[in-house]
């Protein structure tokens, strides 16, 4: 049942055959591979007087990289904790891989919380092996994977050093290895890139994409919307404990429409005096960013510019950034899209 399997690309990976079969059986029992990796229905959680998550519906397809975005205090961490069954929701239901018993799925999940420490007195190898054992690996297997993993991220020569002697960047690598050591099918990462040095950010993204290619689903939360925009196929935006919108990044952008125009020209700018077409202008000399009124036709503006005799060197419809869309939608819904000073610590 066990053996080396060559994946489509990259190095051969050691596959725990028995575990693989358990997975296959689990999938058969559930009946469909198409069930989403995570499904939340009407999840609500309140801490004392503070609403942390309000009536949240969420569906995260298998194999996707999914971003949970929103300012600090929006309820992202609480949502992740509920998914992982670290805290229970006041109302609503959580399914992971089609099962409401998240407890039973824990060995298939890797979680990197925002607060990610290490036992300072343990050696890196021992530490990773310990994490592996918590996730159901046999000690021998866990030790072997720990060594391989440390080698792979360039910490091979420090494998038997105590974690307390590690630099911040080295500790970050070790923490991340701890999450993927048992090759989880679902990775849940809370603010994975915050506080990382730039080299590690690249390394982590690479490792994440490797896991995704191996079929894993990745759910990450971030308040840096640009990060999510670059990395995620799908996002869910949360503000003030409430979902603002979710879906494919592509679709969200398409739906938002292209109302922003980058314009470079020489000549008389009078054509820009068009309140019937333009909502807002930010001018930087000969380069101008224009926001069209909703429903206004950009082509009409271009025609007027040409007719006015201005020499157009650039006229480009700009995709709105996720950030812009988020702020717009949150404002529309009357939700706070600013960072709140309170953080969403569990405070029962």
């Amino acid at each position, binding site marked *: 049942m066990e053996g080396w399997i060559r994946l489509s690309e990259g190095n051969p990976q050691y596959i725990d055959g028995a575990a693989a079969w358990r997975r296959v059986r689990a999938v058969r029992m559930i009946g469909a591979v198409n069930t989403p990796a995570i499904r939340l229905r009407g999840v609500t959680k309140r801490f004392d007087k503070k609403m942390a998550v309000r009536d949240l519906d969420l569906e995260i397809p298998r194999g996707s990289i999914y971003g949970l975005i929103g300012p600090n205090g929006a309820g992202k961490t609480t949502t992740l904790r509920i998914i992982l069954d670290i805290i229970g929701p006041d109302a609503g239901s959580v399914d992971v891989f089609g099962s409401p018993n998240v407890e039973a799925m824990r060995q298939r*999940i890797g979680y990197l919380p925002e*607060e990610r420490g290490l036992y300072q007195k343990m050696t890196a190898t021992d530490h990773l092996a310990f994490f592996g054992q918590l*996730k159901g690996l046999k000690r021998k297997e866990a030790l072997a994977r720990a060594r391989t993993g440390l080698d792979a991220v360039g910490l091979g020569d420090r494998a038997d050093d105590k974690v307390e002697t590690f630099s911040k960047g080295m500790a970050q690598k070790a923490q991340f290895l701890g999450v993927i050591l048992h090759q989880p099918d679902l990775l849940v990462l809370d603010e994975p890139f915050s506080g990382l040095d730039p080299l590690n950010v690249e390394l982590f993204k690479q490792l994440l994409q490797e896991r995704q290619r191996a079929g894993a689903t990745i759910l990450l939360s971030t308040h840096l919307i640009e990060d999510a925009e670059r990395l995620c196929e799908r996002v869910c935006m949360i503000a003030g404990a409430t979902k603002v919108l979710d879906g494919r990044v592509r679709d969200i952008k398409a739906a938002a429409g292209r109302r922003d125009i980058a314009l470079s020209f020489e000549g008389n700018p009078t054509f820009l005096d068009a309140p019937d077409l333009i909502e807002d202008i930010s001018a930087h000399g000969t380069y101008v960013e224009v926001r069209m009124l909703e429903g206004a036709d950009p082509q009409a503006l271009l025609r007027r510019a040409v007719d006015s005799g201005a020499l157009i060197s650039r006229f480009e419809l700009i995709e709105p950034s996720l950030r812009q869309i988020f702020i717009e939608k949150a404002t529309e819904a009357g939700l706070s899209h600013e960072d709140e000073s309170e953080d969403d610590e569990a405070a029962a």
Partner: protein
Amino acid sequence: MNPFTPRVAAVIRREFVLRVKSKWFLLSTLGLPVLIVGLGGLAGFLAVRSATDAGEARRVIGVADPAGLIGDLLVEEFLADSLDAVRAADMEELSIDEARTRLSDSSYDLLLMIPRSAGRRSAEMPGETAGANEGEGDDGRTTLLARASVPSVIEGSVRGALQRASVRARLRSIGVQSIDPGALLQRTSFEVINVTESGEARSQDIYRALSFGIAFFFYFVLLIYGQMIVRAILEEKQSDIVEIMVSSLRPWELMLGKIVGVGAVGIAQMAVWALIFALAAVYGLTAGASTLAEAGIDLASIAVPWGALVLMFFFLIFGYLLYAGMFAGAGATISNEHDAQQVMLPITMLIILPFIATQGVIQSPNAGWGVILSLVPFFSPLVMPARLFATSVPVWQWLASLVLLGVFVLGAAWVAGRIFRVGILMKGQRANLPQVLRWIRHG
């Protein structure tokens, strides 16, 4: 359901290995026997040393007995005890205050002053109303003046000589001459033996000492290891690792792993101690058998109370689990060392109180209140083992005690688990009592 899942086993293993490998473990495990042997050795050395000192520096004892009551007899007794003694005729007419000022110029190191008034009272010999070195003035008290501090060996010799001389003087006064006072004053001793219902005989003193030792040991172990539990839980919070942990295992699994892991360290430590003491005992008993026999201790008569030892082990384990659960719950409500002291205090008191009670129970192990305390959880882990050694405890009593304790262990584990579940994720401020009560009610 087996609570010891592989992940709990992993936590236990980590706690155990890390602690057993630590310097602390090495120091405390080897340090305690070294300390005990060292202290014992030091005490022995000092005793031998002072005895030799007393022998080396010969002291001259002057006996001032103006009324001539027992002076000569005393000198005889001192000489028989190989001490230098002479009648101090030159000091006989002095008051104690005068003698005191003249002592340093005299040829005596010690001056035993028998007051003139001593013989006036009927049927009373010098020294019988009071011991040496007590009081001043001629109120019938015998006084021992000394230039330097008097070693206890000398003081004992003086007391003995005085006693024997008095007896001889009294015997002489009623016309008996030929009896050796040593024979009259033969020391007597006896042993108290408890005969249990099963006919088993126990020497009381040895078991009293043993039960005090056990109680002290339990007290020490519960305190040290309880605090270690709090540290172990604090470590989770302070190293920011707890959220990773609770995403992999249930909070109660983490708690169980910590408690059992730390407990295993304790058992390992005690095993090492037991081994060291067993070796020392075998060596000591073989080497010192003759000395013990001289002292009237017959090793064969000491029955090892195996039953009590086994029961004691259960009480220790249950007691540890009870207190460890409480310490774990307390540890989950705090985030720093400073608060640790505060939350540990009430639990520590719960260990100190039974320890104090145990002292009384050992004196009268079958008194009603002792029996009751040995049944009450929190008290029973210390009081019952002490009673088991000090007396024979009816089966129903230790059984009831153990069952009650077991129920409390489960109860404490349940409450601690509820507190732990919420508390372990808390950071910063220490949780207050209403908060903790809410966690227990709602989880």
